[in-house]
């Protein structure tokens, strides 16, 4: 069979009874066996469960009762998503033997859609501390060059999807943890609007910044995965009580008529990006103009003005979650997370409240900046993936990140591969939409992705006979 299939392709073949879900799952398990010794993307492979899920999907395929586009599709879950009866560790010694009794809402939804659970994927410790080399399991490696960083914290999902070990996976995004690995591993990954997809049953990092979302090879696949995730959860206090849109409805409309705002200052002044990243953005803007979109620059406060309250809020909320463990088991954490979290104890209540007040003002500023546009375009990462041993411990203090502004403001934000730079490593663009306008974000991303040829290339180490 084809070494790489997208969810859309596999789903079509399954629906036409031209591809066996069991064969597809065995193919993915075989790839895990061959490649994951290098990539370390999985913390736990659930082979028996995967084959059972695949057989059930195959039964439905034969009787013409497939549940939908995810039925029979091998996926993985970031190991902060609770999975009933299956170890969920947050990649931490503290939860090394933790076995939840219940699935998280998203896990249950994908299972109900017929997705095949391949296993639990590596993450930065508790979705914040990485890359770390002092944890019970090694960090995931970038398939484009295993000496290099995947970004995080959805590091395992990034590696596993890029290498074709799974066709899609869950991530979470509190300051960039879906879009970062999507950018550095050459994927499509979306942080949806805050409240669109339930956080219940996912180990929290910072409750007012945490988002659940999908990662996949293509924008179209992301739309399918998000469709199966989204929806009101009355037991998640942040959950948006509104009907779920059809995220794929506008995919084929192209960019004609779209009004695109360019946050140029972010990637030219506030944190200048690599040459390949900048070229990718410029090429995207040219493409959009050629397709009939209206493109103009928009300006907001400097990117650090968005990052700073984001990190104050994140550190305070994360410290509150972790305080009991930090007091009793400080040295059981990896050094990176432990030290990053400790600063939360030094924040004053007034710092947190002021940061939340500042947050509202910045939400309003971003909303005003988007008044006459449909989407914003900017970078999702500064450049190509650095070596995994050269990631600064205090990166978040040193330079502003491109992703935090949209956690702070809660807007939907999609990272899309925009080419390959130094060392053949991927670069990316970020497409940001208005609240609950994921369909428009996907429309722009799909228009770009299908016009460029980047999806035809896979990491060299993952292509074998």
């Amino acid at each position, binding site marked *: 069979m084809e070494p790489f299939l997208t969810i859309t392709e596999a789903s079509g073949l399954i629906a036409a009874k031209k591809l066996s879900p069991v064969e597809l799952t065995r193919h993915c398990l075989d790839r895990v066996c061959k490649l994951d010794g290098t990539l370390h993307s999985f913390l736990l492979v659930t082979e028996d469960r995967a084959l059972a899920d695949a057989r059930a999907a195959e039964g439905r395929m034969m009787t013409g009762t497939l549940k939908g586009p995810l039925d029979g599709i091998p996926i993985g879950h970031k190991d902060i998503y609770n999975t009933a009866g299956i170890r969920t560790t947050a990649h931490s010694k503290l939860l090394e033997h933790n076995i939840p009794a219940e699935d998280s809402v998203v896990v249950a939804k994908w299972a109900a859609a017929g997705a095949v659970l391949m296993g639990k994927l590596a993450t930065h410790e508790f979705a914040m501390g990485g890359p770390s080399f002092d944890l019970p399991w090694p960090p995931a490696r970038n398939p484009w060059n295993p000496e290099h960083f995947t970004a995080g914290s959805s590091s395992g999902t990034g590696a596993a999807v890029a290498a074709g070990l799974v066709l899609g996976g869950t991530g979470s995004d509190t300051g960039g943890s879906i879009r970062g690995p999507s950018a550095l591993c050459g994927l499509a990954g979306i942080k949806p609007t805050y409240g669109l997809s339930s956080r219940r049953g996912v180990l929290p990092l910072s409750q007012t910044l945490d988002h659940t979302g999908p990662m996949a090879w293509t924008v179209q696949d992301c739309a399918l995965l998000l469709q199966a995730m989204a929806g009101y959860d009355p037991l998640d206090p942040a959950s948006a009580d509104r009907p779920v849109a059809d995220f794929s409805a506008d995919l084929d409309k192209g960019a004609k008529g779209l009004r695109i705002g360019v946050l140029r200052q972010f990637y030219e002044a506030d944190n200048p990006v690599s040459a390949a990243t900048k070229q990718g953005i410029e090429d995207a803007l040219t493409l959009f103009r050629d397709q009939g979109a209206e493109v103009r620059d928009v300006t907001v406060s400097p990117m650090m003005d968005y990052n700073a309250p984001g990190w104050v809020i994140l550190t305070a909320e994360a410290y509150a979650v972790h305080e009991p463990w930090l007091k009793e088991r400080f040295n059981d954490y990896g050094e990176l997370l432990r030290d990053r979290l400790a600063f939360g104890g030094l924040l004053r209540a007034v710092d947190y409240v002021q940061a939340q007040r500042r947050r509202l003002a910045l939400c309003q500023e971003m909303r005003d900046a988007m008044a006459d546009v449909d989407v914003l375009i900017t970078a999702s990462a500064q450049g190509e993936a650095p070596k995994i041993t050269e990631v600064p411990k205090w990166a978040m203090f040193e330079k502003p990140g491109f992703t935090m502004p949209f956690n702070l403001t809660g*807007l939907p934000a999609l990272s899309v591969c925009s080419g390959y730079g130094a060392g053949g490593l991927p670069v990316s663009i970020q497409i940001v939409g208005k609240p609950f306008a994921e369909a428009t974000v996907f429309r722009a991303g799909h228009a770009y992705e299908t016009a460029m040829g980047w999806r035809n290339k896979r990491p060299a180490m993952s292509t074998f006979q």
Partner: protein
Amino acid sequence: MSESKFEARVKAIGLRPKPDDLPMLEALVKDLDRAAMMLRGPRSYAEEPLNAFRLKPA
């Protein structure tokens, strides 16, 4: 007289109360610290805060 721990703590956050007010301030902070400790009961890490961040559609 060397600086007390409390005085050092007050100085560290940039406050400069009158010396005569320090004992009363220390007593008040002690009460607040005690109240804060009472909040640290057994609590699941999954327990949500009261206030939620919500977006309105554009």
